[in-house]
């Protein structure tokens, strides 16, 4: 049984009088996809921001591979293997899809000292980028400028960029946002494909997708954990049904 | 330094800080509401001072000059906003910087053409042209106290505007968003025009009342602009309260710095800025 690679204890974040995230304990394990559900305002994106380091915690701690990373900056966390994708597509619009991924992969091997060589030619980084594009299904569109990609393709690029950084942990913030049925299905397949090699946290609204891929689900309401368990447990839980799933549950 | 010398420097520092606040509040207001960085803001201060000089020479009364000057600066502000600054909303910083830089050049040359490049003095109005004696040898000029009083009064009026009006509510919300302003039932073009005119008038007025004390010289616009930038960096942009605290801080630090270490005159301000940049880069009063 594998142990948690990323774990939080009593994680909280306050904004003035509001506890956006309140005493959350969550664990991510390699090979498992842990989904976080909750209505709008439940604190899901805040949670991801806390885990990725964009927001500082007001209370509690985050441990990664046994070390306390609560105070680490976002770029440090990324370098130690915590990758994050964004709900609002956050790419480099003027660069090609390939360059987007190449730059992401370069973060692992900056080689700042080699200022004389053409970055695009360096094989290890180049190949990592191509692999990431391939995993996300964008190989055919590698040379297209990112702003010219369709919305769904941009969401795929969003994931490809994180994959190119070869992370151990993936924090995915609504990767299916704005996708049509076919694109969403492709994304679900992608998630299933990458889960065995990573520890995933998935924040999503798309119920079908979540139940299709999640190994564990945590439901948040008003910043707190309402319930946490296997998909079956969550589906059956009356508290969850009342608070969130409602009639469509 | 004995008590009275200290008191004098303290009053000087506060007066300088309050004057700075008038100018800086205009700068931070314009940026907070309209999202425009205006390099030419210092020029309004300079224009105010030169207006005080020319108009008081013409009319023989500084009071009259100030009143006319305020009217003229409001008009100037409205015209500038309508003709130039309205093009700058939603433009990137580089373009704003360049246009306002061009404006500085225009103002400086126009001043050179109209009034020349000489340094001028402006006499303190007779009403205030006396000093309060502190000791046998030391006294404090009443005009400076008057300046501080006026600045405090204006600061209070500004507070009323910000805290008690709808316009002020919008300013506090840091709304540089046209739709949001329009949804509050305010005519957006009018609001922007008035805010801009207010900023210009504040800076020009500061220049006018400062003229008897600091004299009127070509480089005064740039000097005050740089210091205002430091005020805004320290106080946080868009924050009137931050501008007040930072202005007073700088006023005091600069005054005492010049007295205690004359060789390093002027460097205290930069030192303060450097410290803030290291310690709290978003400014002391960050707007979320």
């Amino acid at each position, binding site marked *: 049984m594998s142990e948690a690679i990323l774990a939080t204890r009593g994680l909280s974040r306050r904004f003035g009088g509001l506890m956006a995230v309140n005493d959350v304990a969550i664990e991510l394990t390699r090979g498992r996809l842990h989904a976080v559900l909750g209505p709008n305002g439940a604190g899901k994106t805040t949670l991801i921001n806390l885990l990725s380091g964009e927001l500082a915690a007001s209370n509690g701690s985050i441990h990664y591979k046994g070390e306390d990373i609560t105070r680490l900056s976002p770029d440090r966390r990324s370098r130690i293997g915590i990758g994050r994708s964004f709900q609002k597509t956050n790419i480099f619009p003027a660069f090609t899809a390939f360059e987007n991924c*190449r730059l992401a992969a370069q*973060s692992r091997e900056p080689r700042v000292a080699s200022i004389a060589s053409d*970055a695009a030619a360096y094989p290890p980084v180049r190949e990592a980028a191509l692999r990431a594009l391939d995993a996300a299904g964008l190989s055919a569109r590698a040379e297209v400028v990112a702003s010219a990609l369709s919305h769904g393709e941009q969401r795929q690029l969003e994931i490809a960029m994180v994959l190119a950084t070869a992370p151990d942990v993936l924090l995915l913030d609504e990767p299916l946002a704005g996708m049509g049925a076919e694109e969403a299905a492709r994304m679900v397949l992608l998630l299933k494909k990458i889960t065995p090699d990573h520890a995933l946290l998935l924040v999503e609204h798309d119920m079908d997708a979540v139940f299709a891929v999640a190994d564990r689900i945590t439901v948040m309401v008003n910043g707190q954990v309402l319930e946490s368990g296997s998909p079956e447990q969550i589906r059956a839980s009356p508290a969850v049904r009342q608070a969130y799933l409602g009639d469509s549950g | 330094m004995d008590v009275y010398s200290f008191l004098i420097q303290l009053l000087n520092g506060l007066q300088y800080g309050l004057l700075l606040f008038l100018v800086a509040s205009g700068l931070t207001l314009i940026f907070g509401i309209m999202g425009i960085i205006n390099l030419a803001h210092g020029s309004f201060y300079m224009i105010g001072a030169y207006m005080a000089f020319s108009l008081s020479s013409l009319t023989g009364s500084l009071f009259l000059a100030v009143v006319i000057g305020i009217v003229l600066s409001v008009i100037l502000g409205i015209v500038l906003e309508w003709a130039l600054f309205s093009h700058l909303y939603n433009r990137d910083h580089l373009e704003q910087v360049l246009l306002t830089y061009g404006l500085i050049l*225009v103002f400086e040359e126009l001043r050179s053409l109209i009034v020349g490049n000489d340094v001028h003095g402006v006499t303190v109005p007779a009403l205030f042209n006396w000093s309060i004696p502190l000791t046998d040898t030391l006294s404090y000029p009443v005009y400076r106290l008057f300046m501080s009083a006026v600045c405090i009064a204006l600061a209070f009026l500004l507070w009323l505007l910000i805290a008690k009006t709808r316009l002020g509510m919008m300013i506090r919300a840091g709304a540089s968003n046209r739709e949001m302003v329009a949804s509050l039932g305010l005519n957006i073009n009018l609001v922007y025009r008035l805010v801009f005119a207010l900023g210009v008038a504040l800076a020009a007025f500061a220049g006018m009342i400062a003229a008897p004390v600091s004299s009127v010289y070509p480089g005064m616009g740039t000097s005050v602009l740089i210091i205002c930038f430091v005020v805004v960096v320290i106080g946080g942009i868009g924050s009137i309260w931050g501008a007040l605290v930072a202005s007073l801080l700088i006023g005091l630090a600069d005054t005492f710095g010049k007295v205690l270490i004359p060789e390093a005159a002027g460097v205290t301000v930069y030192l303060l800025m450097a410290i803030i940049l290291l310690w709290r880069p978003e400014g002391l009063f960050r707007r979320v």
Partner: protein
Amino acid sequence: MNRRKIALLAVLALLALFPFAGATFYTELVTKVMILAIFALSLDLLVGYTGLVSFGHAAYYGIGAYVLGLMTPKYEAASLWLTLPAAIAVAGLAALAVGIFVVRVKGIYFIMVTLAFAQMFYFLFHDTEIGRGSDGISMNFKPTAEIGGVTPFDLGNATHVYFFVFVILILVFLFLHILLRSPFGRALQGIRSNEHRMRSLGFPVYRYKLASFAIAGALAGLAGYLSAMQFGFVNPELLSWHQSGNVLLMLILGGQGSLIGAVTGAFAFVALQEVYQSVTTHWQLLLGATIIALVIFLPGGLASVAGRFKRKLIGGPENE
């Protein structure tokens, strides 16, 4: 070879042949423009490629110039091979020192603090005896290029100076071209495009910006040195905000984010300046009005006009 490269080579050939065609006055004028082009290139690294709009770049230009002024003895020539590297190093270090503070902030703040620090340097040279005050320093001798007993060229000769500067311009251009397609340069452009994402991807953005700031400062110091060498005197106005504003203007004129644009902008700026100065002593009024008109009516700068013209002429995309 594509049409762009041909056009570039044609321009280079023109520049190389120029001194033989015109009077010394024009040779010196084009030399001055090429020096400003180096200055503009240095700022373009910062503004056009890293996305950091600095309004205080003249500080490092002036510092490079003052290094020569201060290192030149009264009664003999200084060595080019000693003073030139010194100017680059000192300017770069000054930029590094300032960068440590200013790179912590962004956007409007960055513009303001870069201007503030530049003014600090200006007052340092203007009000204190470090740079001999507001009168500046006059150099009685141009630096000598003597090395190992041989003097390969004479910096007192306008044509030699022209080619010396020409070669340096080409070297700086090549240096930046190579730098920008290296991993470091790509990261800078990533920062300009989306700094937030760069940080999220694991790049230590602060360090990259700081490095860019320092390199840009060093190159500006090189340009300042050449300027001091050409004119034989330095004064605090080299560090004034006018100078900082003018070099930004060059980028807008030529189109930021393009090395060729920076060079073109320098030529356009000097052309404008020469024309206006011949019309009136209050030429800054005309310049100011032109800048205002440019921003309002031609937001893409001359580059947008030039870009369309260029594309028709030589084809190729708008970016480098």
